[in-house]
């Protein structure tokens, strides 16, 4: 059977158009769409993978510096440990020859409104020599926790004062009353 060429051409062109519109174009769009999605997901995977690689590396670095991290943990503990602090002040005062006459928690609140860090302020009344106070302050500063003295005042006691009237006694022999406001931090 001979094909009627002009009609076949017209029909083929018509068919071509139909195929382009209903088959090729949608498949091309699907192809482009999936190509785009693949690119995005590949980028997402790569960036996530890079990110977690960095996290793993940072984690290993932190583990390698566990001693330093322990110091950070000690300096800024998760809990305020008020009882431990009171014991610490008593012990260090005693070790340095200071009598802890009075000790109370005067402030326990967040450092700033947005801050997670809490400020713990203790007021201490102490009795002892100037050298004892210096030893006590030195102990506070070399402690694993960060202590700071908001205010310090010292008064020569009457005994020492009386002596001082006639002839000032050597510094080591004088007895003072000290008032300290000591600040430390926790989460």
């Amino acid at each position, binding site marked *: 059977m001979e094909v009627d060429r002009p009609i*076949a*051409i*017209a029909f*083929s062109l018509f068919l071509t*158009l139909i195929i382009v519109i209903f088959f090729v174009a949608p*498949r091309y769009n699907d192809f482009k769409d999936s190509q785009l999605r693949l690119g995005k997901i590949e980028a997402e995977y790569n960036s996530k993978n890079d990110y977690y690689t960095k996290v793993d590396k940072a984690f290993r670095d932190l583990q390698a*510096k566990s001693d330093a991290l322990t110091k950070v943990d000690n300096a800024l503990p998760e809990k305020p440990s008020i009882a431990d602090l009171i014991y610490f002040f008593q012990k260090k005062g005693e070790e340095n020859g200071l009598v802890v006459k009075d000790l109370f928690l005067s402030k326990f609140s967040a450092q700033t409104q947005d801050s997670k860090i809490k400020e713990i302020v203790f007021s201490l009344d102490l009795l002892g020599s100037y050298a004892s106070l210096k030893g006590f302050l030195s102990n506070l*500063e070399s402690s694993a926790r960060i202590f*700071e003295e908001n205010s310090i005042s010292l008064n020569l006691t009457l005994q020492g004062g009386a002596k001082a009237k006639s002839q000032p006694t050597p510094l080591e022999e004088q007895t003072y009353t000290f008032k300290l406001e000591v600040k430390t931090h926790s989460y």
Partner: protein
Amino acid sequence: MNFGIIYKLRDKRNWWVDVVFYFVISLLVALVICAFIFSIKTSFQEKAIKDFNKKLAEVGNEQQKEAEKQVFTYQKKINDFAQLLGNHKSALNIFSFFEQYTLPNVWFSKFGMDEKQSEVMLSGESEDMKSLSKQISAFEAQDSVKKIDLLNSSVSSSGRVNFNLNLSLDPKLFAFVPKPLTPAETPAVTEGPATVTPSENGEIPAENGGQNQGATKSNKKYITSFDFSLDGQEIAGSIDQTKYTVLVEVPSGTDVGNLSPAITLSPNAEVEPASLVSQDFTKPVVYTVTAEDLSAQGYTVTVIVAEPPVVKSSSSKAGIIAAVIFILIIAGGAAGVWFFWKKKKKETEY
């Protein structure tokens, strides 16, 4: 409409009709193959997407998330610690100062220190007025002493001078500065919140010996502006100072592989990579800002390219043209079929 030419084409066999015929058939076959290839490729890509989705689900597993949590917890903790250490004050400095500059014939009986005001109140006695005067001069000669007020002085019956002094001191005298912190040795992760700084050698000095006395240095390390200059147009980045991120949207068609940002920082801070140095922003870039006290903070800079504007008019024009061509072809095809059907009918009638 003259359909005579179609009769002629039909009746008279022309070689180019064959060429056109085979070309059209080839085109048809090529289109079918194209559709097939697109389908195959799409299915491969869909498979690849599924694979990446599976891989994505595997990245960031429980263990990694736990590690991430710990890293960020310590990051925050170390930053807080560095900040506390940076602002740390020491009362022992004050005692050392007075021990150093107090004359032997002057005695103090009362001492009051207010760290916030950087003030010290002293009461005591001196051997004579001359000694007190010398003592005040000795304090005044020190740079750390900003101001001295002699509140009162009186000569006692023993001939000694009782006095009250108020000293305003330089706050630097109270300060401890931690060991320099170097971001280079720091485990730094940056996606949003970023960069941690332990100390120079990884040690965090908790002991007094690990702290250096000196001037207070700024710990401010902020990016205050992040701009690109593109074709004379300033594109400013949006800075999130809580997440430490910078987001910049550049116009469509911008080559983000080679952009030089202009960065401004907190006073005395430095940034690495430096300002106006070309960077590849096809991926997020981490800028590390180092403060004067050498503590550091990372900012993740992400540049996104704006979508090209959609030209509705041209797309609708193309749609209209396509529709017209489609209708013309349909109409031409229908007219041809009707014409040949009518002719065939006439031939059968004869």
